[in-house]
């Protein structure tokens, strides 16, 4: 069977991942903001007997990269070997998209132009003459609306049929043309367009690493002169003018003010008086919905699991399984896992869809727009707030998302401070502490409002700390000035509610939950063994927690809490079950599904209001989970930064606990 490698490229947020999903039937994440995809992904599909491997790349404005996610894309486009490139364009801003089309067509001959978002253009009364565009460019041009799967068959056909062997060329100023012909006259046979290679040579040495064979003697001799006369502006200008010319030939605007609704909303969401309060209300709203509506399913799950536990217990008894093993499996593993599931599943199943909804609407970049100024004052980048939003879901995702920040220094700031945003795995622990010790018990409406309010305040504390630490870091080890900042605000888009719910539950909730369970099961086993296998006339839990106890008490906590956080390093979700197992193993076994019972256990181990506050503080400020640390190591390619990301929040957290303890005791 014939096979083809196809790359999907285009400006950020034009729908590449949506096209990719439509073509391959996969579920690459999409979202209405530039910079959603930061890594290459590929998928396979078949069309009319040709097997296609399709690559989804991060969005890029041009083939000269500025940020890391753009480098991923431009390196792929320029130097990978593949058969066809689909350049996805935005029908609403065709001129800018054409800029990338022309740059690509200078490098590749087999290009298919996919003008996506045709439905949006139609709504804004912009018409595009696709036939004319095809004639001008000399490659297939297909109009699509990927979200509603329109035009995909034509796109498929074009991809398997395209066989173009000439590059699009337009003329540069004469001096450049002369240089190009002198340089390229001496090239050996290469699989790249000689014109493009010649331009790259004039630009800098980088190209010689990728295509060493063009570094001939004559080229080197001519290099100095050609680089002296080379003005990048002339090249860019020529390409821009050409796209402007083409777009003026094919695009017609039938309505002058086609952006009025978007402007109207933006005036409210970014207003001096209403902008930031609205964002805070949204945060509060999401938290409230999450807390309020997860109470009932949570206790329902608890009851179910408890019911099964009793049945399992009978079964084990019936099968005459040794009681040690029964306890190990049921009290150790089963309880930890079911605790994690019943506490984690409902809030995640509410939080993730809500978050995705805001993401699809296009709210996220507005947050960055509103908050850029304070970040700039801390010598950081406003896009850091995007990574913080992602961090609320999962810190590892937040760290990866920091690729959208252009400057390395600002990216490190965003990565190091990301764990100040409590991820979903930490919500339940914080919320149950709030419920038990701050507000008292109530599943009522008022109770959940108060909990959500307190949680909002806690997150605000995290945000404040982010600003403070970013500022301090950029005055000390990460010295430097804020670099440039450009941010594109996408149009508001109607989210597809059905698919949002399905996708966020399947892709995110179940994924995160699966990861938590895979940690919770062995952790439960180990804790149970620690607690019950005698060592030196005692057990490991007691020994370890006694060892940590003096320091724990010193900072207003206790040894078991510190131990639980340490053992919870693989996943924050298991801190509370470990803590409870630990306490319970020292005393008698009780159920831990009920907050009232849980509070009794905690109080009987010396917990006070202060302990709860300190627990919350430590939960907010401590080392990120192991997955996040590994992601940081991978992203910054250094254990040094990973170590700093580990110690920085930990020291802050312990210090804050110490501080509150002192304040409380006096």
């Amino acid at each position: 069977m014939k096979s083809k490698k196809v790359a999907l490229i285009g400006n950020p947020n034009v729908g590449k991942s949506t096209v990719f999903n439509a073509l391959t039937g996969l579920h690459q994440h999409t979202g209405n903001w530039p910079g959603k995809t930061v890594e290459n992904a590929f998928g396979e599909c078949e069309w009319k007997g040709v097997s296609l491997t399709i690559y989804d790349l991060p969005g890029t404005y041009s083939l000269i990269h500025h940020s890391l996610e753009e480098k991923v894309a431009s390196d792929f486009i320029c130097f990978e070997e593949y058969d066809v490139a689909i350049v996805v364009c935005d029908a609403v801003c065709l001129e800018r998209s054409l800029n990338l089309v022309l740059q690509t067509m200078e490098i590749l001959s087999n290009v298919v132009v996919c003008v996506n978002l045709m439905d949006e253009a139609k709504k804004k009364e912009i018409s595009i003459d696709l036939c004319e565009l095809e004639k001008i460019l000399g490659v297939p041009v297909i109009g699509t609306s990927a979200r509603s799967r329109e035009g995909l068959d034509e796109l498929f056909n074009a991809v398997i049929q395209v066989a173009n062997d000439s590059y699009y060329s337009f003329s540069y100023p004469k001096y450049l043309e002369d240089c190009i012909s002198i340089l390229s006259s001496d090239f050996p046979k290469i699989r790249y367009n000689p014109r493009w290679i010649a331009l790259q040579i004039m630009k800098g040495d980088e190209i010689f690493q990728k295509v060493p064979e063009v570094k001939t003697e004559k080229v080197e001799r001519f290099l100095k002169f050609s680089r002296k006369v080379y003005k990048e502006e002339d090249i860019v200008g020529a390409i821009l003018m050409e796209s402007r010319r083409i777009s003026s030939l094919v695009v017609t605007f039938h309505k002058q003010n086609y952006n009025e609704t978007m402007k109207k909303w933006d005036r409210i969401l970014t207003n001096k008086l209403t902008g930031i309060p609205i964002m805070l209300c949204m945060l509060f709203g999401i938290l409230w919905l999450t807390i309020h509506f997860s109470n009932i399913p949570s206790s329902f799950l608890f009851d179910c699991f408890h019911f099964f536990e009793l049945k399992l217990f009978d079964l084990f008894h019936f099968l005459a399984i040794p009681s040690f093993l029964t306890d190990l499996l049921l009290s150790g593993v089963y309880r930890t896992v079911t605790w994690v599931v019943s506490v984690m599943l409902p809030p995640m199943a509410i939080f993730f869809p809500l978050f995705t909804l805001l993401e699809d609407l296009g709210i996220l970049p507005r947050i960055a727009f509103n908050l850029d100024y304070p970040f700039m004052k801390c010598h950081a980048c406003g896009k850091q707030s995007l990574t913080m939003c992602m961090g609320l879901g999962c810190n590892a995702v937040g760290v990866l998302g920091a690729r959208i920040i252009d400057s390395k220094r600002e990216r490190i700031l965003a990565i190091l401070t990301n764990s100040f945003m409590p991820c979903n795995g930490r919500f339940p622990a914080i919320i149950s502490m709030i419920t038990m010790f701050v507000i008292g018990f109530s599943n009522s409406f008022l109770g959940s409002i108060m909990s959500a309010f307190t949680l909002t305040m806690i997150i605000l504390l995290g945000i404040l700390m982010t600003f403070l630490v970013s500022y301090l870091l950029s005055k000390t080890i990460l010295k430097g000035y804020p670099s440039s900042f450009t941010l594109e605000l996408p149009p508001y888009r109607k989210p597809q509610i059905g698919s949002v719910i399905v996708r966020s539950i399947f892709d995110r909730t179940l994924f995160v939950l699966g990861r938590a369970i895979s940690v919770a099961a062995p952790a439960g086993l180990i804790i149970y063994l620690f607690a019950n296998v005698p060592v030196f006339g005692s057990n490991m839990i007691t020994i370890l927690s006694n060892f940590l106890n003096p320091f724990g008490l010193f900072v207003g906590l206790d040894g078991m809490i510190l131990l639980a956080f340490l053992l919870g390093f693989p996943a924050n979700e298991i801190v509370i079950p470990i803590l409870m197992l630990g306490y319970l193993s020292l005393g008698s076994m009780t159920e831990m599904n009920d907050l009232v019972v849980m509070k009794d256990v905690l109080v009987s181990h010396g917990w006070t209001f202060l302990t709860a506050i300190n627990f919350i503080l430590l939960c907010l400020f401590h080392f990120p989970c192991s997955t996040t640390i590994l992601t940081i190591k991978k992203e910054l390619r250094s254990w040094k930064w990973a170590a700093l990301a580990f110690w920085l929040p930990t020291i802050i957290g312990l210090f804050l606990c110490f501080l509150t303890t002192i304040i409380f005791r006096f």
Partner: protein
Amino acid sequence: MVLTDLKIQESAYISKILLDNDMKRRLYDLGFFKGTRIECVLESPFKSPILYRVGGAFLALRRDMAERIEISYEE
């Protein structure tokens, strides 16, 4: 005249970009070039960044950067 002199809802044409090469290149890619029509859309709550419309796209620039882009009312 520079870009920050543009009042909200006013538009003009870019005449010159006085930034370092890297930044200039970035702006070119976003469609900021000599002769591009640009409209000031709104300011953020802290007055920086400022949102501009270029073609069909909405782009935010920080004030210090916008100050270094010269504009004129005539093309």
